[in-house]
């Protein structure tokens, strides 16, 4: 008979234990999982990036409802276990009793709330779960919001940096003399303090908190020395204590934590415990690596296999974007210890190694942390470093011939070198898995080995291993920097623009640490687009950051003259329009008139000075700019459809015109060309467009991601919809999704391939709520985009663009 396993606590440790269990023996247990939070398991380490807005909650979920369902886990989330009756082997909750054969207690830890007056006021919170994060984000959204963070340790500083990044005024109160005193020495603590102060965070060390002040809710924090800091929220991040109440009540042996042996078994042989609630050999653990080790051992114990948990050294990294900090081991000074220190104040680098008998005892790295893993590896193995002592501090790249190539350094790592500290994954495991499974992406490695899937700081190493293993077959497109002015890729820049609410080009360059004073011709147009797309109502378009064609709203030709293409909605024109064009051509002696591939008329060879006058005449006939120069909506080609064609199934011309009138003026990452064909004979060639529609009797088949330029590619089918209204909504939503996610100059077919056609279908076809939200955002941004640039300039805008500054007679030079 299947044994009944009850697990109390749905956190990272128990989640990992269940994974191991189901991997080894999917049907060994009938599992019921209790969790206090009303949601599944997520990666708690990544709450800081969620608070900073750099990740979404969805991205950090590790086990969702589907996973539990697939493994037949009965989930009882939001339900608290109130009692364990060990004699009868049942647990009780509000819904009654449940019997177990084996019980696993994984209740984790509770934040330590310092017992001061006012600690229970609304606005005082911990930084422990998603509810805390949501409460903080909500307050941060208010103008001039102020936060006081009590505790200058890892968690407190991550919270402080994230809240500051969201625009709050932040004060950090720390009891000790320097920040993160458990992980850092005073020098590194000082550098960190300076860095955070530079970001506008006030740091008060040796701060004795006396009380939280406030009537209805927290208003300020009072210190023993009389200092008062106003606060809308007070975040307590002073530490955690193992959550052991249920175990104590059940009569288990509990000291600081639930006491377990090497097999993770408590004083009751049928009750195991894992995670932060556990005490093993007088030590309680709070970092993820040992918790995962416990999970592995507990799974084996449940399956009656041999395994033993051994205490491990742990290393720490601070997850604050832009701060590089690594510490491992023990770095207190002592008689028999030596230290090696490297300081480079101008570069903000500080490295300190503590040695004892030629072995590394501890390492603190600030500013440059790439060698952290290497030092940590030697620390754990007790490697004798006497041979390389002189150059040890300069890192691995300096050993053995001064090879500075980071790839060479990774290649030189031994097979058993630990790459991912969180999940204990070594080099040979990653390389082996890449080869066995034919992996080609970082996500693939994460899925198969878990390496880089927790805190993510080893991502660079994993990518280097991918690159080493696959050679040129690995294309790390995601990490290519935008241009020489920054190390960030397009996706990171887009994400950070949103997360940190950066709303001008100088703000982006300042906050994201651009390496040049005002960017270059690659990044400025990209940033200008991202800001236009993300803040349509607030951002003032920077014309000096647009390419000439978009700046003057015409297409520059090889001789410096321009071409002008007015819109012909859906490719339909009239005698009056054609007459107006003919008149303009005569009046301005335009040398060439050409029909374009997008069903309209191009006038080429116009002098720049004549452009406003040409537009004025065209405007009188009702023409607006065709935006034939724009990274934006170009044309919507149509066929004559059911109006004339004996095969036409729908009014393709009408739909094309409707789409063009709805979407003109919108800026997109790269140009967008569309077409609507009235039947599957496809005279409008819709199946090689960015977005195309093929009308059929039953409705409208929407296509996307075609190409007929440098690359040739037929479209993918998005789906079939019944009505014109639906077709418009789906197309607009698709384009808005592309506007929000595409990299500058990346056409739809490349973007869609990168994120996956199914993902596009899922968001646009299947998720009506998402589709409507995209649609609404597009409509909102059109309010600011649908202004005819030609008529603006005819009325005098940007006059300086079209006139010489001065015309000098030759005499003037004398």
């Amino acid at each position, binding site marked *: 008979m299947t044994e009944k396993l009850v697990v109390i606590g749905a956190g990272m440790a128990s989640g990992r234990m269940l994974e191991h269990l189901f991997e080894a023996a999917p049907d060994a247990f009938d599992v019921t999982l209790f969790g206090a939070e009303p949601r599944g398991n997520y990666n708690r380490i990544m709450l800081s990036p969620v608070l900073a807005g750099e990740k979404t909650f969805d991205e950090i979920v590790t086990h969702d409802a589907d996973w539990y369902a697939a493994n037949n886990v009965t989930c009882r989330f939001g339900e608290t276990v109130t009692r364990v009756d060990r004699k009868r082997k049942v647990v009780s909750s509000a819904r009654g009793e449940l019997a177990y054969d084996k019980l696993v207690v994984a209740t984790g830890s509770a934040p330590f709330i310092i017992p001061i007056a006012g600690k229970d006021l609304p606005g005082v919170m911990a930084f422990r779960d998603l509810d805390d994060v949501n409460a903080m984000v909500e307050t941060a959204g208010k103008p001039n919001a102020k936060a006081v963070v009590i505790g200058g340790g890892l968690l407190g500083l991550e919270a402080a940096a994230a809240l500051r990044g969201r625009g709050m005024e932040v004060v950090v109160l720390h009891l000790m003399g320097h920040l993160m005193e458990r992980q850092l020495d005073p020098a590194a603590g000082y550098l960190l303090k300076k860095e955070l102060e530079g970001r506008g965070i006030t740091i008060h060390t040796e701060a004795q908190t006396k009380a939280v002040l406030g009537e209805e809710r927290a208003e300020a924090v009072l210190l023993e020395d009389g200092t008062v800091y106003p606060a809308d929220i007070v975040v307590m991040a002073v530490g955690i204590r193992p959550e052991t109440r249920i175990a104590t009540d059940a009569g288990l042996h509990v000291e600081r934590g639930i006491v377990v042996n090497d097999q993770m078994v408590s004083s009751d042989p049928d009750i195991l415990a894992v995670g932060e609630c556990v005490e093993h050999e007088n030590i309680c653990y709070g970092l993820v690596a040992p918790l995962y080790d416990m999970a592995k051992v507990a799974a084996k114990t449940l399956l009656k296999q041999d395994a033993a948990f051994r205490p491990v050294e742990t290393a720490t990294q601070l997850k604050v974007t832009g701060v590089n900090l690594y510490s491992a081991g023990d770095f207190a000074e002592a008689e028999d210890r030596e230290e090696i220190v490297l300081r480079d104040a101008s570069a903000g680098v500080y490295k300190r190694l503590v040695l004892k008998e030629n072995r590394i005892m501890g390492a603190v790295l600030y500013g440059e942390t790439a060698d952290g893993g290497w030092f940590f590896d030697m620390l754990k193995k007790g490697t004798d470093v006497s041979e390389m002592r002189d150059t040890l501090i300069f890192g691995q790249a300096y050993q053995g011939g001064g090879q500075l190539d980071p790839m060479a350094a990774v290649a030189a790592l031994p097979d058993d070198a630990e790459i991912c500290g969180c999940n204990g994954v070594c080099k040979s495991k990653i390389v082996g898995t890449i080869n066995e499974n034919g992996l080609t992406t970082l996500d693939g490695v994460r899925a198969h080995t878990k390496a880089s899937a927790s805190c993510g700081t080893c991502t660079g190493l994993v990518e280097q291993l991918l690159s080493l293993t696959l050679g040129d077959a690995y294309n790390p497109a995601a990490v290519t920097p935008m241009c020489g002015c920054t190390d960030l890729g397009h996706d990171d820049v887009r994400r950070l623009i949103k997360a940190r609410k950066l709303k001008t080009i100088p703000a982006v360059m300042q906050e994201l640490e651009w390496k*040049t*004073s*005002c*960017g*270059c*011709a690659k990044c*400025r*147009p990209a940033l200008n687009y991202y800001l236009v797309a993300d803040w349509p109502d607030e951002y003032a378009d920077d*014309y*000096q*950051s*647009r*390419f*000439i*064609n978009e*700046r*003057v709203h015409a297409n*520059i030709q*090889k001789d*410096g003259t321009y071409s002008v293409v007015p819109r012909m909605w859906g490719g339909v024109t009239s005698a009056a329009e054609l007459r107006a064009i003919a008149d303009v051509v005569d009046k301005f002696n335009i040398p060439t008139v050409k029909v374009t591939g997008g069903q309209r008329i191009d006038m080429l060879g116009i002098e720049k000075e004549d452009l406003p006058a040409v537009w004025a005449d065209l405007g009188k006939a009702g023409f607006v700019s065709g935006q034939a120069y724009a990274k934006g909506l170009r044309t919507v080609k149509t066929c004559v459809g059911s109006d004339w064609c004996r095969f036409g199934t729908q009014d393709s011309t009408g739909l094309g015109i409707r789409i063009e009138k709805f979407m003109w003026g919108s800026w997109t990452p790269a140009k967008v060309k569309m077409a609507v064909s009235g039947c599957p004979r496809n005279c409008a060639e819709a199946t090689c467009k960015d977005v195309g529609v093929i009308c059929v009797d039953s409705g409208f088949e929407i296509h996307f991601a075609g190409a007929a330029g440098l690359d040739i590619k037929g479209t993918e089918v998005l789906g079939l919809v019944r009505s014109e209204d639906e077709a418009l909504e789906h197309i607009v939503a698709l384009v808005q999704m592309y506007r929000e996610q595409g990299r500058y100059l990346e056409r739809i077919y490349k973007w869609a391939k990168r994120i996956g056609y199914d993902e596009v279908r899922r968001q646009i076809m299947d998720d009506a709520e998402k589709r409507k939200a995209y649609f609404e955002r597009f409509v909102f941004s059109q309010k600011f985009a649908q202004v005819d640039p030609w008529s603006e300039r005819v009325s005098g805008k940007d006059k*300086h663009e079209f006139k*010489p*500054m*001065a*015309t*000098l007679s*030759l005499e*003037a*030079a*004398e």
Partner: protein
Amino acid sequence: MNAMSESWVAIGKLEDIPRRGARCVKNGDTTIAVFRTADDRVFALEDKCPHRKGPLSQGIVHDGCVTCPLHNWVISLETGRAQGADEGSTATFPAKVEDGRILLSLRSAAEKAA
């Protein structure tokens, strides 16, 4: 005329040119592009890229350089020389700002050296 007595011509006010932008000055058959950088320095180049004669005045101005609108050559505003792997150079003209007015000398640096 000798090198000591440059003859300066006032061509307009500094504000006539947008920051990180350019305007043209026509001098007979020659077009001179006058650039204003983000930090309000002014430079003047013949409005012709050494590559395919693209109008540099229409390019994007960044730091001390302009990127040609035709094929993205990057030209130094100070020296007129192509940057990076590209080779070639464009005539430069002395330019300065006095009391908010831009003054241009019409003898190109090359002529002066001759």
